[in-house]
């Protein structure tokens, strides 16, 4: 039986910059920052303070995780901004949007009322996008689905 998701990978272009973004701007905490041996793999994980059992590992695509050519392709996809990495939840989307925007986080959508909650969309410093959602307890059918309905 699988009991939970404990760790997810965030692909980034620069580990130090990503660590600074996820902690300094988003407000997550550093869980690990370890280098395995001299010049070895750098292992950085971050997470939300109220969610100790889920961590995000900040990884740069390339050897030895994958071949160099694949790593370069991944980096271009990240920089182009086509990759989405998940949805963060907040108890106040508007306030968090204002806080993050003031800190210089790039938003591609301001807070919008959707049937499932209030949602904004932002990018991390590498270019990947995330939803920032304040979920509702129940669907609000009067709110616009935006582009959800094809």
């Amino acid at each position: 039986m699988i009991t939970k998701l404990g760790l997810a990978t965030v692909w980034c272009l620069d580990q130090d910059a990503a660590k600074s973004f996820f902690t300094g701007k988003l407000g997550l905490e550093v869980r690990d920052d370890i280098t395995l041996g001299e010049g070895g793999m750098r292992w950085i994980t971050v997470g939300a303070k109220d969610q100790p059992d889920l961590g995000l590992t900040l990884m740069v695509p390339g050897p030895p995780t994958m071949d160099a050519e694949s790593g370069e392709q991944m980096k271009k996809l990240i920089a182009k901004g086509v990759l989405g990495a998940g949805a963060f939840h907040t108890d106040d989307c508007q306030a968090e949007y204002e806080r993050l925007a003031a800190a210089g986080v790039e938003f591609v959508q301001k807070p919008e009322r959707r049937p499932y909650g209030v949602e904004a969309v932002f990018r991390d410093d590498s270019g990947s996008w995330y939803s920032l959602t304040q979920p509702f307890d129940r669907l609000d059918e009067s709110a616009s689905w935006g582009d959800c309905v094809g």
Partner: protein
Amino acid sequence: MGGMTTATSGPDLTALRRLRLAKDVMDRDWADPIDVAAVAARAGYSRHHFVRLFGDVYGETPGRYLARRRIERAQDLLRTANLTVTEICMLVGFTSLGTFCTRFKEQAGMTPTEYRRASRGPATSAVPGCFVLLWAGGFAGR
């Protein structure tokens, strides 16, 4: 400074980032009176260079992309908002009703009025917008 392309590798990461920021301007500020020249200037490129690079990276010209995003927002408003077609045309950033209707029919396969009549009804999908937007190729504005 990035921005140069080669036959084999395409734009470098710095250029890709600048193009992404320009695309985000169109996704975020589509209702404002922006045009391709303004977006190119924000990205720090000449209009000609920007149009070529953007097309290489995203597969359509920035002008087509911006118009497509605006038509998508118009479709949303036609489904959900009690506004006239002319009001929606202006709201999503078109300045000519004729151009709007022509582009709308090209993209949606029917006129705005026909589209509104065909699509009014209760919401049927519960997929979060952000994921559908990835599939559709970009993010909505406000």
